[in-house]
């Protein structure tokens, strides 16, 4: 039995939002077809103004907004769907692998959207950057071609690691993180990379 929309299950909420988008979109489409089939003079009438405000602006805008929300949530798990990423996906699922990505994925330290969580900045700007980056990846995959060497487009921001690990008890009780205090400052300022001591995030 499916749970209700207020169950807190994000997949369920997205399913409801998706159907809301379909309903709003269909109502808008019916209104637009109605407007298209009216006589030319109809566009001058006050009724036309209200009809277009609802059918051309309000309902489609809501539909597009819902499409963004639902679509963006749905593609968070699609990073491995291109063959380009096969080696990285294989490493993540390899029980023998010691890479950080593999350990985070296999131990469920990141419960869902493993790639997205580490490769997206936080906040609205992070979401927008991820969206633009995703579009660039799709364009490369389908149109311009994938570069011979796959590498991260910009240095991995240390604050992504620190978002979860900073001030965690396990982080603070590790002597190498906090003693001497300059080390901690270096880690927090990004001058000392986590990967200086820890295993690499992905196979080199």
């Amino acid at each position, binding site marked *: 039995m499916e749970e209700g929309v207020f169950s807190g299950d994000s997949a369920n909420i997205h399913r409801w939002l*998706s*159907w809301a*988008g*379909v309903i709003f*979109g*269909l109502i*808008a*489409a019916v209104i*637009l*077809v109605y*407007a*298209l089939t009216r006589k*030319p*003079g109809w*566009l*001058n009438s006050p009724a036309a103004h209200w009809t*277009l405000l609802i059918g*051309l*602006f309000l309902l*489609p*805008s809501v*539909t*597009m907004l819902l*499409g*963004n929300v*639902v*679509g963006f949530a*749905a*593609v968070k798990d*699609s990073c491995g*769907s291109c063959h380009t990423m096969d080696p990285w996906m294989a490493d993540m699922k390899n029980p023998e692998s010691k890479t950080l990505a593999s350990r985070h994925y296999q131990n469920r330290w990141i419960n869902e959207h493993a790639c997205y969580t580490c490769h997206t900045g936080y906040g609205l700007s992070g979401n927008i950057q991820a*969206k633009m980056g995703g*579009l660039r990846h*799709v364009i490369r995959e*389908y149109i311009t071609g994938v570069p011979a060497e796959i590498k991260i487009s910009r240095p991995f921001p240390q604050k992504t690691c620190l978002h979860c690990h900073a001030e965690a008890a396990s982080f603070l009780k590790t002597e190498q993180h906090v003693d001497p205090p300059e080390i901690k400052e270096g880690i927090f300022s990004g001058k000392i990379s986590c990967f200086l001591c820890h295993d690499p995030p992905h196979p080199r």
Partner: protein
Amino acid sequence: MSEEPARPALSQAETPAAPAPDPVPPATKSSRNIMRAALVFALFGLAVSMWHFLWPSELAFTAFMTIGQGSFGLAIVIYIWMIFRDLRRRKAL
């Protein structure tokens, strides 16, 4: 105190008429065609969004994000432009 001489009453014909409001010219044929184009663009955007909602896939999402939203965005730009044109035509701006 001198009495003010009575002014002769204006006849009905001499009464100054209020200026007649300018009639709003009907939308031109080109305006109507542009508006119909906006409707078609919006319909196309909605069709792509339906594809994305009902049969979600990476390709459908990409199409929605690019041509779907692009087409709808164009429809909205045209719609707003036509509103401004209409308001100018009615001398409201």
